């Protein structure tokens, strides 16, 4: 691990200032469950590490008329146990419950979970891959059992965050703070695939951090479900996951958001599946059609063909839970 300068600012403005003067050579640390591993493995070699834990704000779950706001420094276990969240967003609670292990959820934060880097073993290992500015993706001809079947383009990482998958399904938005001020973007637009930027997974500039997540109040009749498959049941990143949020009216699916995790470089919104659901009665046939549509464009590699069936099954499972 290379030596770095450590900052523990008391105010957000100081964080932004430090980031904006570091020329891209600073990283932020919230719960530390991802960045510490990256520092130790030499994946990141920043000059400066800016600790966010000393900031007084950004640890909250606040309900208002239009929805719920979650401070980026709120730990996953706090959110998982929060009564407002439990009441309004069971989909998010389900996703958090199967994220990592309880010890990690006690430490990891909302912002960190969304901004964590991919787990690709080539990215994390001694390989000069595209995402590190190198010349190629080593997974293409290598060990790609855990890699993307959707949305891959030159690089085939999968986005590791369960909570991001759930939050995109919940139509959440992200508040971003930077030296140019504050802005809010739909979380869906927060993530970028390799065709947009092969070096990072989101739109954050060097001087920006994620400060808050807003989840709008679900409309009446909204129902959500989350399904995830892991190789090791106790704690593991997703082989695949499927988050679904539907608004049901008289057994008919009025609105639907379908987001797949663990199968694409970003939380993968499946418009194809949503189209199959909208205006339809949610029955086994509709579910089968939607699940098939979700993976129709899948392009598996040599070792991850199983993810196609798995994703289809997980989406069916989530939709069946809503149907019941």
């Amino acid at each position, binding site marked *: 691990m290379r030596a770095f300068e450590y900052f523990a600012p008391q105010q957000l403005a100081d964080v932004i200032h430090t980031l904006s003067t570091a020329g891209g050579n600073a990283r932020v640390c919230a719960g530390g469950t991802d960045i510490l591993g990256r520092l130790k493995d030499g994946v990141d070699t920043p000059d400066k590490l800016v600790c966010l834990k000393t900031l007084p704000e950004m640890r909250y779950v606040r309900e208002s008329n239009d929805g719920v706001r979650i401070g980026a420094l709120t730990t996953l276990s706090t959110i998982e146990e929060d009564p407002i969240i439990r009441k309004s967003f069971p989909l998010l609670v389900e996703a958090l419950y199967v994220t990592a292990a309880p010890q990690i959820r006690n430490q990891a934060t909302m912002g960190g979970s969304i901004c964590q880097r991919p787990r690709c073993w080539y990215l994390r290992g001694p390989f000069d891959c595209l995402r590190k500015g190198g010349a190629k993706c*080593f997974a293409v001809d290598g060990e790609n059992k855990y890699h993307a079947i959707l949305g891959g383009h030159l690089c085939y990482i999968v986005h590791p965050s369960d909570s991001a998958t759930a939050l995109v399904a919940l139509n959440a938005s992200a508040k971003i703070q930077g030296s140019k001020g504050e802005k809010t973007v739909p979380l869906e637009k927060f993530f970028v695939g390799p065709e947009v930027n092969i070096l990072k997974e989101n739109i954050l500039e060097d001087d920006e951090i994620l400060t808050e997540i807003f989840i709008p109040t679900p409309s009446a009749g909204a129902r959500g479900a989350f399904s995830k498959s892991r190789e090791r049941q106790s704690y593991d990143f997703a082989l695949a996951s499927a988050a679904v949020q539907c608004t049901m009216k008289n057994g008919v699916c009025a609105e639907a958001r379908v987001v797949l995790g663990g199968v694409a470089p970003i939380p993968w919104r499946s418009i194809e599946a949503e189209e199959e659901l909208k205006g339809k009665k949610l029955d086994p046939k509709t579910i089968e059609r939607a699940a098939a549509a979700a993976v129709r464009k899948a392009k598996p590699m040599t070792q991850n063909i199983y993810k196609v069936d798995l994703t289809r099954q997980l989406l069916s499972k989530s939709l069946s839970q809503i149907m019941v």
Partner: protein
Amino acid sequence: MPKKVKTTVEFEGRVSEILVDIPDIETPLWGNDAELDIVGHPIPRVDGDKRVTGAAKYTSDILLPHMLYGRILRSAHPHAVVKSVNSSEAEKLPGVKAVISAFNTDPIRWHGSSSLFDKTARLVGDEVAAVAAVDEETAADALELIKVDYETLPFVTDMEEAMKDTAPKLWPNGNVVGGKPSIYERGSVSKGFAEADLVIEETFRTQTELHTCLETHGSVAFWEGDKLTVWDSTQAVFNVRDALAAALNIPSNHVRVIKQYMGGGFGSKLELGKYTVIAALLARRTNRPVRLMLTREEDQMNTGNRPATLQHVKVGVKKDGTLTAIELKSVNANGAYLGGAGCGAPYREMYLCANVRTEEYAVYVNTGRSRPARAPGHVQGTFGLESMMDVVSRKIGMDPLEFRKKNYATVNQAQTNPKPYSAKLLDQLYEAGAKKIDWWNRDKSRNSGDFHSRKRGVGMASQIWGGGGGPPAYALVKINRDGSVNVLSGTQDLGTGTKTIISQIAAEELGIALADVAVDLGDTETCPFSGSSGGSTTAASVGPAVRTAAADARLQLFEYAALELKVKPEELSSRRGKIFVKSDPQKSLPFKEAARKAGNNMIIGKGFRGPNPDGYSLNTFGAHFAEVEVDMETGRVTVLRHVAAHHSGRPFNPLTMTSQIEGGVIQSMGYALSEQRVIDPASGIPLNMNMENYKPMTALDVPTIEPILLTQVDEHCNTLGGKGIGEPPRIPAAAAIANAVADAIGIRIRELPITPDKVLAALKSSVPSHKV
């Protein structure tokens, strides 16, 4: 003078004949009817409190004044000539005290014709240079400043590729270890196949498993003048001492090796490690103590593995279930240096069969070296054999358990003159296990999944292993003037409970309370020799020596008690803290009072392990029964129940025995379902040297494990009536789980680990997957 005789001993499947003394103090067998107060009782670990409170000092806890920290620079290439090592930049880094490599040290022979820092690297992770610095971070930074000029060579990491003539050669004589397969044959398999009603062929594969000891390998080295003291996380203090003395060309009595507490070895810590010699060299060069603990990544990369196997199995069987021939052709990934690989033993020993042939290749590949891994060979071989027995029994329409009973062996057929087993109660284990899992009603289980998408199944597998132990092993028992007792033996407690069992045996024989016994192990300077802790041999090797030493000490103490009680020493016995006259137990003296009479007249009882019995094969047996649920949509396998029935003679301590069984099953569940080393084929770089992607099971992953212990004494094995249990529970567990999966889904997965991708692929095509 004790009489010298020859005796046969077995360690990890290797049998040898050695010279041994017969103890002149007789300790009669503790038989089934022996009234024992401590041995055989569920005694909690004597050092459990120290382990859980952090008071126990592990090697990585040793902190000496002015101590430096060592780190090793490892090859980035799977096969390369190390042309030069330039450490000038590293040496300039403040805090760096020494950098050593092949270019500034005398060569030390290693792995036969290789050396400590070999100028040819043969795997990613081979030792190239090492640094000592004032702290670990500086040492790590220094590694990055060392410039190594490599000339890369062609490499091969796949064992089947390595066997081809065109493959890059790791060694001048080719990639097949010894240049030819190791062949065993009894009877004639061609005759056996001709006699068969049905001949079945199958191919099975197992992955590379990593030991993943919770405590990584490492040492602390400290020179006082020309005397070296080493704290080492090892299963064999004397092996390390003697090999270290030889490597450094100094006498054994100039080397002291200490191991107090350790967090697992599983076979990967049976020999001197390069890191120990490197720590000693760095310590000598800097004249300061050096601690060198491997990181998790280094540990996973280059401290050993259970080698991958390819097993082609051919079995001939008659319609009535009689086995007429068993043939195995196996390929085993030895790694870059000779490590020992083969999986044929269960095929040769487990079932009654006159015609058996095993042909086994061990192959050099540019990856980490194979090492004994908790029941080496047997775990891999039993997966293949017991999967095959399931296939065969199903093909002939016979119940898998009945089929196994039909082919029950009562003698060790692999021996030239087959000897009967000293105690084989496997039939009773079958009955007990089948009853517990409700084997005869398992169709009910198969149809009881919560949803139509989840299917349940039950499978079983059997196990044979050694574990009889043997000489040489020594112990001393000292009785202090207050009646407290010290036991010393140069064995080691790997975390298995050895210290507790030795305390029990000493207290039992002396007739005193467990609390009055202190046990010191793992120190080559203060303790008499005992062998390495492996092969499930420790308790059965060291235990009888401890008992003899205790009996010797007790006899000496009786001389003082006899004077007091005015009887002859041989008229006395002792139990529950009292020395009493056998014919008149009321006439007694407290043990501690007798010790006070002895005062400072030192009582030192000496004991050693006597010979093994002639005429018997010392083995241990077990049978596992697993019930699983398979999610047909996601391919996930969940073990619902795991019944593990074992017999090793007398259980010395049912609590530690149960722990061994539970630990063995948990490790095996990872082997069956999730653990697998992955190497990038293009670069030879291992990809999952952590516990994130190399996936051992955690407490949350395992169901309640249901051990069954048969307690009947083995009357032939030794004076304690008990054998080892360390390895047996690892052997049949994965095979039982795999058989349960096949029972559940009707398709056999022939390759471990049984991960969701394999299950889904099998369900989709029902064509078996063949990728390693």
